[in-house]
Structures are given as structure tokens and as C-alpha cells.
């Protein structure tokens, strides 16, 4: 459970989510990961450390490079985004059911009015 907490605090930051989204496409070096952001490389390294401690990413040794990749938990975290999206949509559509139900009487009234006019 504590790892889950760490994963969710890690995911609470937009830069870290963007890093995960990038890693979802494949392994990347720190330089590659830092490229899209207007932050320093040390700042990116700090984000990577948080993600690593949360068990979302792992590093590999490749000469002088330390490319990062997503680990299973990271992929699962992405799936959870889909689950959260699903929940938000389901809630919206449950509310929409109520809105639609409340629209029906109006429509009947309108039809009745039209008949009255005729």
C-alpha cells in the first residue's frame, strides 16, 4: 500500500506524468527525457528519482548512459488513468440519465400544447 501511495504522489506531478507518457513509447535517456521540458537536467533527474522510488520506472546501464524504462507498475498506472477516466465518464452519464428523464415531461407538454393549439 505504501508503494501505491508513492506511485500516486509520483503521478500527481504533470512533468512526471509526461515522463511516463514518453517512456510508454520506449526506453529513453535522461537527455532525451529532459528535451521537451523547460527545466534543468538536475530537475528531471529529481523527477526520475521520485518515479524510480515509486517503482514506476527502472534504469539500465549502457556504457556511460543510464536509459530509463517503464516497469509493470508504471504500465498498470497508465491503465488506472483509463479506469479513472471511465469512472468520471460513468458519473457524467448517470447524471445525463437524470437530465434526459427530466426532459421527457417538457416534450410531452410541448406536444400537448401543440394539440391544444390545433
Amino acid at each position: 500500500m505504501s508503494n501505491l501511495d508513492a506511485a500516486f504522489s509520483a503521478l500527481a506531478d504533470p512533468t512526471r506524468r509526461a515522463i511516463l507518457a514518453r517512456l510508454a513509447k520506449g526506453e529513453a535517456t535522461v537527455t532525451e527525457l529532459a528535451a521537451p521540458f523547460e527545466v534543468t537536467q538536475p530537475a528531471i533527474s529529481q523527477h526520475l528519482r521520485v518515479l524510480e522510488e515509486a517503482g514506476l520506472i527502472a534504469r539500465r546501464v549502457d556504457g556511460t548512459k543510464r536509459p530509463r524504462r517503464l516497469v509493470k507498475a508504471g504500465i498498470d498506472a497508465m491503465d488506472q488513468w483509463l479506469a479513472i477516466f471511465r469512472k468520471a465518464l460513468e458519473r457524467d452519464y448517470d447524471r445525463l440519465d437524470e437530465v434526459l428523464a427530466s426532459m421527457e415531461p417538457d416534450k410531452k407538454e410541448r406536444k400537448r400544447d401543440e394539440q391544444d393549439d390545433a
Partner: protein
Amino acid sequence: MSKMTLKTEGDTHVVVTRRFAAPPEALYRAHTEPELIRKWLLGPEGWTMPVCISDARPGGKIRYEWTNSKGGGFHLTGEYRELEPYGRIVHVERMHLPNPTPDNHVETRFDPDGGGTLMTMRMTLPDAQTRAGMLASNMEHGMEASYVRLEGMI
């Protein structure tokens, strides 16, 4: 009860289907008339939509602003592309968090289904990364409410 389906398709699409016990005309109106939209398009509990602009004609502007009691807020802007009453809406939208996200192209269809309607919403994002970001940005909105649910899920 599992009336809704949500799936990713290829690298760039998200497809949602849902059945409703109302005719396509009612669905179309609830998706295009501001006074109806703001009653349901709210996401997690605790959010309201104080600003809802929906100019339902080709090229017409969309602007939804959400807020919660804790002073949180964000907005979405977009434009209508095609409107075929009461069967089909094509629009483009982007979230401002506060920087705008890449455009999400959304086609929403309302097909008669028995006495009700089958809605099919197909979102197209520019690339896989943007799609992941779109799903993630929703998390920002829904996170608080979702913590508890997720812990239950795992």
C-alpha cells in the same frame, strides 16, 4: 450495471459507447444546449460549471469552465466542426491546465436503439503520447475522488 464501454483503439483513439433510455433528439440537445450540458458534464462529485458556452453551429465556439469549492478550476475550449441534428456532432476540444493540450477531435453519434439511443463517442488524439496525457490530465480532475476507489480496486 455495465451500460458503458470504454476502449482505446490503435495508438490514437479512445472510443466510448453508452445506451440511453431517451431518443436521439434528447441526447443531441443535452450535448449542445448550455443549460443542459452544465447539469451533467461535471466529472467527479463537487465540481460545477459556472461558465458554459456552446454555440452549436459549424465553427461555433465551445467553452466550459469548471470549479470546485476548494478554489480549484480549469477550462476547456473548442469549436464545432459538423452538426447533423440529431444524429452526429463533430467537434474539436482542448483542456487548459493551464497550458492547452493538443486538440482532441471528437465525433459523437446518436443512433436509435430500440426505444432509446446508442451513443458512440470516438476521440482522436494526435499521437499515443497525447492520448496518454489526455487520460492522465483527467486524473488531475478526478484524483481526489479516485484515491479511495483505486485502493479498493487493487
